[in-house]
């Protein structure tokens, strides 16, 4: 729930900032079209029917949604003058029926910019075409990652459902529809806002050139650069548009065959994820850990708490292979070991979780021995919970009371059963990540070579780095982002 609220408030704030930008640009435009800066008061009638600047025909597109008016007194610096005047923020609500294609006064559209294939120079080159081209490219990728066409279709379906009079007969379902509609609307508005902002900036530059206004031109160029950076960030965020991507998750690592060497490798992999998660500012808790007899771990589960933990970590599912001279081999021979990684989302939306009934559970003391009770003083109070209908089990041993171990194990069990159910429903669609038992040892995703040369290479994307130490210290974002981009680009083109 909290993640949903966060997302919603986030998208709202970004819309407001866009509105702010729109307002500013509109004002700048009006100012530049009058010959000299002056105090200017809009009459109420003008507020209702704003004077359309050249190329600002999009303002007429108030759509079928509602439009609102924000009144605010704004003091802006223009040249050497301070001008105070009430501003009207004309907010266009984008309905789900988007039929128009925004363009500049010269008829240039975002797609047109991409088609122009302008050379993209570095950020530091103050070249508006490069900036515009980079922004258009980012917008294009964001749309692609949002599965734009599908999103529009989905929005239409949701709007139709929202308009049905019997919607609230099933409040749970209605709530779900409202949330999804709101979230998709937010995403759509954001992208549309980017497109308009880009075109406005371009118009502004052209206008500035026509008017020989160097100040305005440099202002607009700066605005374009700011936008180039922010859309690049958005582009990365848009990688995580999956249904459960914003969830926290469990990461599980299991050692492959090969005894101590592979158990040591499994613990190195687990350490890599702990460090990665810490660097990202996520909360990390060890839920379950089975140590190896001499070194390393046989198996371990950590809980990673934070926004988009699942979205990123899901890129790590599969088998990780290590090649090195084993410190556990007195003959100093080269060994190859494997560790399997599974990632399970922790569903935030309670209504989408599988209902587990108490009578379907078998709870056992883990590693119980002897007479128990008053005979034994132990701080070991782990339990193993089995969900009898599915055979799914979970254990937790790192809490300090049996009650808490049981609660943590239950949380893991719930997520595993949810994952199983998702798999059943989705029939292995993109949302589904495999569980440890499903991961075949042939499913290698990445190789870490420490000897005879040093390299980490992702077998899915061919992304590679020559410094394994940094990767093992948790520097995984390069691998994760390249995989996420590649897997989205592999999907059919949604634009």
């Amino acid at each position: 729930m909290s993640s949903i609220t966060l997302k919603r408030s986030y998208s709202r704030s970004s819309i407001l900032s866009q509105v702010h930008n729109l307002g500013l640009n509109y004002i700048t435009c009006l100012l530049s079209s009058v010959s000299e800066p002056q105090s200017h008061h809009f009459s109420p009638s003008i507020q209702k029917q704003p004077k359309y600047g050249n190329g600002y025909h999009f303002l007429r597109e108030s759509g079928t949604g509602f439009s609102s008016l924000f009144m605010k007194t704004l003091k802006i610096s223009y040249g050497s003058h301070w001008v105070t005047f009430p501003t009207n923020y004309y907010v266009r609500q984008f309905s789900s029926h988007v039929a128009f294609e925004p363009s500049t006064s010269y008829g240039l559209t975002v797609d047109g910019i991409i088609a122009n294939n302008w050379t993209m120079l570095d950020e530091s080159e103050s070249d508006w075409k490069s900036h515009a081209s980079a922004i258009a490219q980012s917008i294009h990728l964001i749309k692609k990652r949002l599965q734009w066409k599908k999103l529009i279709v989905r929005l239409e379906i949701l709007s139709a459902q929202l308009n049905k009079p019997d919607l609230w007969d099933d409040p749970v379902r209605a709530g779900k529809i409202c949330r999804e509609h709101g979230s998709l609307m937010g995403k759509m508005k954001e992208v549309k806002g980017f497109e308009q902002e880009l075109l406005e900036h371009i118009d502004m530059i052209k206008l500035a050139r026509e008017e020989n206004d160097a100040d305005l031109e440099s202002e607009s160029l700066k605005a374009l650069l700011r936008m180039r950076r922010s859309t690049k960030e958005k582009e990365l965020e848009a990688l995580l548009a999956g249904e459960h991507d914003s969830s926290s998750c469990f990461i599980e690592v299991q050692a492959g065959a090969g005894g101590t060497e592979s158990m040591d490798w499994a613990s190195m992999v687990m350490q890599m994820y702990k460090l990665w998660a810490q660097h990202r500012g996520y909360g990390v808790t060890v839920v379950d850990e089975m140590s190896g007899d001499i070194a390393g771990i046989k198996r371990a589960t950590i809980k990673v708490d934070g926004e988009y933990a699942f979205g990123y970590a899901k890129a790590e599912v599969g088998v990780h292979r290590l090649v090195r001279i084993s410190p556990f081999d007195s003959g100093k021979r080269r060994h190859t070991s494997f560790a399997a990684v599974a990632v399970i989302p922790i569903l935030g939306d309670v209504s989408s979780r599988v209902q587990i009934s108490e009578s379907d559970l078998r709870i056992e003391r883990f590693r119980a021995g002897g007479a128990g009770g008053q005979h034994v003083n132990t701080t070991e109070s782990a339990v193993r919970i089995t969900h009898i209908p599915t055979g799914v089990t979970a254990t937790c041993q790192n809490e300090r009371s049996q009650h808490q171990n049981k609660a943590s194990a239950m949380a893991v069990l719930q997520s595993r059963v949810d994952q199983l159910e998702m798999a059943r429903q989705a029939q292995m669609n993109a949302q589904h990540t495999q569980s440890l038992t499903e991961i075949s040892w042939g499913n290698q995703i990445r190789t870490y070579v420490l000897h005879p040369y040093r390299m980490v290479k992702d077998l899915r994307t061919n992304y590679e780095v020559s410094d394994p130490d940094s990767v093992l210290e948790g520097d995984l974002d390069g691998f994760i982002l390249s995989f996420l981009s590649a897997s989205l680009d592999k999907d059919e083109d949604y634009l």
Partner: protein
Amino acid sequence: MKLSFTRASLSSVLVPLIFNSNLVRPISCSSVSCSPASAKPQTPLFLRSPTFSATLSDLKKWQDWAKTLASSVGSSFLDSDNGPDATLLQREFNWLIEDALEHPKTIGITDNDKKNMVVTLRADLEDLYELWKQRIEERRPFQYIVGCEHWRDLVLSVQEGVLIPRPETELIVDLVGDVIKDNEGLREGLWADLGTGSGALAIGIGRILGSSGRVIATDLSPVAVAVASFNVQRYNLQDKIKIKQGSWFEPLKDVKGELMGLVSNPPYIPSEHISGLQAEVAKYEPRLALDGGSNGVGSLLHLCNGAVSMLKPGGFFAFETNGENQCKFLVDYMETETEGCFRDAKIISDFAGIQRFVTGFRAQ
């Protein structure tokens, strides 16, 4: 009566075991309803104020030393008397860090330039060395080292002289939760926890009873009474739970026949088994709370007989036992010796599959 005499004499011998007064700063007695006996509860490590400090590098030295000491144990304790192995001791050490450091995460900082950083502690570093040595070399129970035990969702203060509540016993609260769920009489009635020790069962039950539900908890040991009162106070349940000093039903004479519920984890280990127990239990925990006499069922029978007159008709009872034999013996006793007094006597297993509890109701 013979029973209570033995218990009293035992307690006076066994209560003051290891008591490092440097490490323990007793909390002020005025804030807790202390028993007439002058037993003072100790403040658990995690509740002490962080008035000590050490540099990060000194702390890490302690950590390295402690981990080496823990791993040197291997499985030797496990093999000799089913004690903790190295893995478990490592985990306990992490919990010691959790309790002893004001900001436990600081010990994970690896930056070399931060090694002179000052870390605030709840005990002197020298005492922390001493505590861990006691844990490994003398096998002092971890819960006495840190002065607390995590039990259910509670953190209970414990100290020498008070039995460390066991994970198995947590289940009694669940059993009570099940019977009060749709029985208002039980939910809003008067309960008793006899031989309460740290107060674990009384607090666990006090927190799930309805707004009129009350608990009286008794213990013969003044230390237990002091510690239980401290714990009750810490969970702000003093209006709901009364701690009384005395043997079993003695302090309950004025509520005869009024109890809606009765729970107890009485001493049930047969005397001849005491010497063979794991070191942590045999050397440190109060014999008063463990030794159940020659066959271990003395206290259980006393409770059973007392329940006949103390419980209201329809009242519920749950007793913890040593296992299958005692459970069967007790159920058999109820069906023959106290025939007709109880109904629905049931044996319930713990999570290890050992028949652990006997529950039932006072017949109408």
